[in-house]
């Protein structure tokens, strides 16, 4: 069992959910404030990290 891979999948999904919430909060134009942009940038970076973990653990 790869606990790291499992954690990375859920962390990634939860991070994507945070971006989904931002889409909802800013619909329909999706004009993000500076704060929302900054938060989204950090979230995207974190999703990339989870993908790297998955590549390392499973491939």
């Amino acid at each position, binding site marked *: 069992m790869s606990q790291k891979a499992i954690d990375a999948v*859920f962390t990634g*999904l*939860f991070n994507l*959910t*945070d971006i*989904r*919430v931002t*889409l*909802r*909060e*800013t*619909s*329909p*134009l999706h004009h993000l404030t500076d704060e929302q942009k900054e938060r989204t940038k950090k979230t995207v970076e974190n999703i990339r990290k989870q993908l790297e973990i998955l590549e390392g653990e499973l491939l």
Partner: protein
Amino acid sequence: MKCAGQIETRAVEESSINLDPIQAAGRLTPEAMKAVIAWGDGYSVCDNCHKPFRLDYVTKPPIADFHTEAAAWLGMDKIQLVPGARRAFQEVTGALVGKGEPVIMTGMGHYTAYLSVEVVNGVVREIKPTPDHHITADATAESIENAIREFGYAPKLVFVDAVDFMYGNMHEVEKIAKVAHQYDIPVLYNGVYTVGVLPVDGKKLGVDFVVGSGHKSMAAPAPSGILATTDEYADIVLRTTKIQGDITGRKFGIKQVGILGCSLMGDPAVGLIASFPRVKERVNHFDEELKNHKIVTDALLSIEGTKVASEYPRKHTLTRMDTAESFDIVAQTHKKRGFFLSSALNKRGITGIMPGVTKQWKFNTYGLTTAQAEYLADSFIEIAEENNMVVG
């Protein structure tokens, strides 16, 4: 984009401002969205179900704690998770109402309240709404008196909607409860548009049952809801099984009869619980929701001929507009007829208002940000101006 087979991915909330009156306060919190990812498997909440094998005793996830906290939050003694408010209605009528026995209903109630009486072969007697669409304690007393004359005994239950679905009007529950109790009739507070949206204290209201809808007003997946009651009625309505198989002798522990055992599992249960901390907090900020709502109603009222059909000033974010003298006049000659309004809104990324309707229509702004409310207000004005309506 399909999410599976022929099933479309639902992205209404991501792509649009959704004004559907029944959907607004049921949108999931971020916490619930994450919880449903993890708990979607069928009997997921049963991973750690131990003796006495009942849902409200499960501590992982914290279902047991939720029962205690939610009861206190509503000023009641006991709660039960239910698969939607309608099942709570049914559980109460199943315990209190017999064949041919009368139940008092507001006349502005949800159809499932009526059906919950029908399913036990009870009889509905309505309270007549006032011309301005309110239910009063005086009218309740009149209906009770009429029922006593007709049946020879007091009705078994009074249903009262805190906020009705037709107009989003607020009704005098506390006074109605006092009247009903003078006749020893228990009162069911239908809080499907209040529990999870604004503060509700069942004890202060003096009601015997508080019913909330998870998917309508508590940011939870469907079907979900809460039935809250007092110690007095818990023993009757939430009673435990006593049945025994005549051949096998089988018994069923402390399962609750009225809801046929464990009532709510998987995503509906965990989503409701995951949203609960944020829901508890958000009810304290309903004034901000009303401010955002006012931005939109003010814009609509600036369009000549437009009226609010609900009580005004607004006390709830679900409102019925009367645009028979404004948008409906445009519809009479517009090439899209009555569909011009929903079409113009859709073009601006706004959905949830019934397509084709321009005389009277309902909308709910609950949960919108101020920026979204302003965009919405501007959009209505733009549509009016595009159609040569007088705005000012």
